[in-house]
């Protein structure tokens, strides 16, 4: 497991289709136990919304998909699920069609039966971001870096007094980007905690990231360092003009991240179970044969 280095993890990997190599993802999961992948609607939205392959892939979510009234919502829904399952399947060494997307009661999505792989999904306009983690919970959030937010009241809703003071010290042209980073960081942390938006955003803060890629620290309302309990916070720029933030919970002390799903199956357990059935059947067959033989003798 990668130690906490104070450095940001690998940058988000763009994935644009089923066919391409997924090397970046594999290395990300191996080196840092968590990985960010992103894709564009244009690459992932299915052309045929009634394609049986797609319906199969959506699995238990197919009904919800069918109930969406606009094709545009359907396309977004399908694209996000296809991307999420494709990325998760790569991490689990499985086929996307084998994955069932489920939700914990706290709203966080997971792959049913593979809860050791934590995940988070965010989208805005044309881009979708998936975060996967083998450490602990993960939350991601993406926003257009060009969105104009500073000076429009958003920072009053989202920032602590300390953060607003810190913003004032930045050059005017950097303030909008800094607000977007703080905002997405708080969204990401809330999503990782699983109660999206339950934590009032002005009740905790972050150090104000100066660069596009950063590892901010958690702060209390008054600006003093908070107890982050080993959480990792990062912001990353996407070359296409977006800001991505991520919050990753630490793994339980000393635990080892898990390998692929295939390696999770304990073959000795399964074969013991099957062996037990086979033994029972052999016994039942022998008993049936004995009864039959006895019956034959009785008749003879």
């Amino acid at each position, binding site marked *: 497991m990668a130690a906490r280095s104070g450095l940001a993890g690998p940058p988000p990997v763009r994935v644009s289709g089923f066919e391409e190599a997924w090397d970046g993802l594999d290395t990300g999961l191996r080196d840092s136990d968590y990985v960010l992948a992103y894709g564009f609607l244009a690459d992932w939205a299915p052309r045929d919304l009634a394609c049986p392959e797609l319906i199969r892939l959506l699995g238990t979510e197919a009904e919800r998909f069918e109930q969406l009234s606009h094709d545009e919502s359907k396309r977004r829904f399908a694209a996000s699920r296809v991307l999420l399952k494709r990325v998760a399947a790569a991490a689990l060494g499985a086929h996307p069609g084998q994955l069932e997307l*489920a939700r914990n009661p*706290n709203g966080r999505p997971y792959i049913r039966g593979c809860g050791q792989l934590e995940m988070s999904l965010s989208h805005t306009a044309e881009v979708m971001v998936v975060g996967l983690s083998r450490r602990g919970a993960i939350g991601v959030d993406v926003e257009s870096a060009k969105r104009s937010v500073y000076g429009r009241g958003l920072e009053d809703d989202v920032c602590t007094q300390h953060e607003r003071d810190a913003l004032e010290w930045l050059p005017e042209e950097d303030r909008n980007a800094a607000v977007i980073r703080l905002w997405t960081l708080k969204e990401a942390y809330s999503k990782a905690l699983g109660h999206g938006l339950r934590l009032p955003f002005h009740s905790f803060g972050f150090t104000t990231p100066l660069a596009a890629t950063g590892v901010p620290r958690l702060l209390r309302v008054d600006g003093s360092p908070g107890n982050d309990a080993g959480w990792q916070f990062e912001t990353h720029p996407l070359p296409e003009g977006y800001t991505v933030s991520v919050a990753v919970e630490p793994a339980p002390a000393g635990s080892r991240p898990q390998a692929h*799903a295939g390696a999770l199956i304990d073959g000795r357990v399964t074969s013991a179970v099957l062996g037990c059935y086979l033994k029972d059947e052999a016994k039942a067959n022998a008993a049936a044969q004995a009864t039959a033989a006895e019956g034959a003798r009785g008749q003879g």
Partner: protein
Amino acid sequence: MMRLPPTEDRVAALERLLGDPRDRTKPLSNAAVLAADRRGELPLGGEPTLAAYGLHEEFVPSELGGRLTGLDAVARLLRAVCRRDSALGRGYGAASVLPALCGWHYGDEEQRRALAGVLREGGRLAAAPREAPTGGAGVRATPGPDGLTLDGRTSARLNIPRADAYVVLAQHTDGSGDTLLLLPRDVLPAGCVREVPGQDLPAMRRLPVGELHFDGWPVPPGRVLGTAGQGSAAVVRAQQMARPLVPAMAIGSADTALRSVVCVTLAGGGAGPALSSRYAQEVIASAFVDLLIADCLTLATLRSLHLLPDRSSLWSAASTYLGHRLLQQSTGDLLPVLAHARHDGVGYGTFRKHLIDLSELPPGPTGAAAALSSLVPQLATLARRSWTPRAGGGDEVAELFHLHDPLPPLDAERLKVAAADDPLTSLLADPDALLAAAPDPGPHAEAVRARTAALSGHLRELAAECRELPERDPSVLANPRGYALAERYTLLAAAAACLGVWRHGVTRTGCPFLTEPAWLTAALGRICLRLGLPGAEPGGEDTDALVAHVVARYHQGRSLDLYGTVLGDVTPNAEVPGQPPVPQPQEVGGRV
């Protein structure tokens, strides 16, 4: 044979020794346990207290002079310890249970007597039963004319540095199986027992951890447990019995975490949501309900090991997988309630400590996958042969829910790792019969009926999907689809256990609140929610009632599980004899 006091009295006696967790002058108070945790130690005086109670006697069968009557009692006692500190419970007790069970069920007379002697003198046992499928550790046994010769090392295991006897599984080098060995410490060669620095190891904070190393060591005669070459089969059965104790213990940890949150929120909670916030009420009610769900499944599982041993593997796996998951998640969901509380207080610290303890308890991701691995190959068979309405409306499982009733002795010979059918989950196949025989849920009748029907429908869907699967072919299921089916199964088994408790057990809890349907409605709702079934939203009045009851139990110093155990030596509210032990919520100040 001496007649043993009933479980309730033994739990009460242990609780009195452990003391009121809120009383800072007690060595096992929350404050003292937290201080020890911060020092990286076990709480001072903890193990001597357990020794004074004679907890080690509880793991020894009565015919060998101990007090072991049933796993349900062992679970209750270990849970009481885990309400203070799960490391204490594991280090003093739980770590000895698996090797002890191997000994009781597979040892000869002399081995059993020797093992009983070790435990009754207060000694510890350590087990190195199986190595993870990957990893360099492993003990190899080379068969020869004079017996086995051991090489290799065990993986790092709890209590190895201080155990007095070891149960080790050694893989035969010639492929002729594996053998389980009972090795007293004094026969081991010099340098065999090695301590490993614990801080680098998973899930063993504050406990001594070590490895056994062998280098061409000839095993002395008389050390084989059971049949040579068939060690795995013995270990699998011993694990089937010991495994459900873990969620039973985890309930103790989750209980204290929840009580700590109630304590902080009642005290004002700093800047965080107070108990008056809807959000805080919802997560507190959910955590309580999840704890009850885990306890219902644990109860049925532990009793099934005695009563229906040939079917118990299903529920042993389900409770191992699901119990821990429910408790860890719903305890984690309490975190935002305290996010802005004072982080240096005992309440927050105790909550945080137990949350970390929960993450360190088995099964961990590997054990969870192993539990699902044992379910996956059974689904196709159960879908074909079980999960249908049964004659007698499921009365055959009634005894699984008879809290406090004595149990027949464990019989490892009757345990099976694969179940031919599933009478517990089949309760859901005939919801009308089940509910007709159960207490009337009054105004909750419609919600209970609708949720039970939804779960019943889901069982039919699961059965239909699993009937499509080939029997006896694990490769088809050794993938996330198989895991997903198995996870859904665990949730349905838990729902059946809750309904079973409602039908057969609830009046025995002695808790009037549990005879009211609010908890059942909420529990079925939580399970429906996890299965993605619609109509599972919690009712506002149920949340109020659940929170009021949690607060009532908190004020009375009672545990938050099915038993409402009085914690420590508190006399709760100086009750009038004959009154129910847990008053109705409205009697203690009504809604919060």
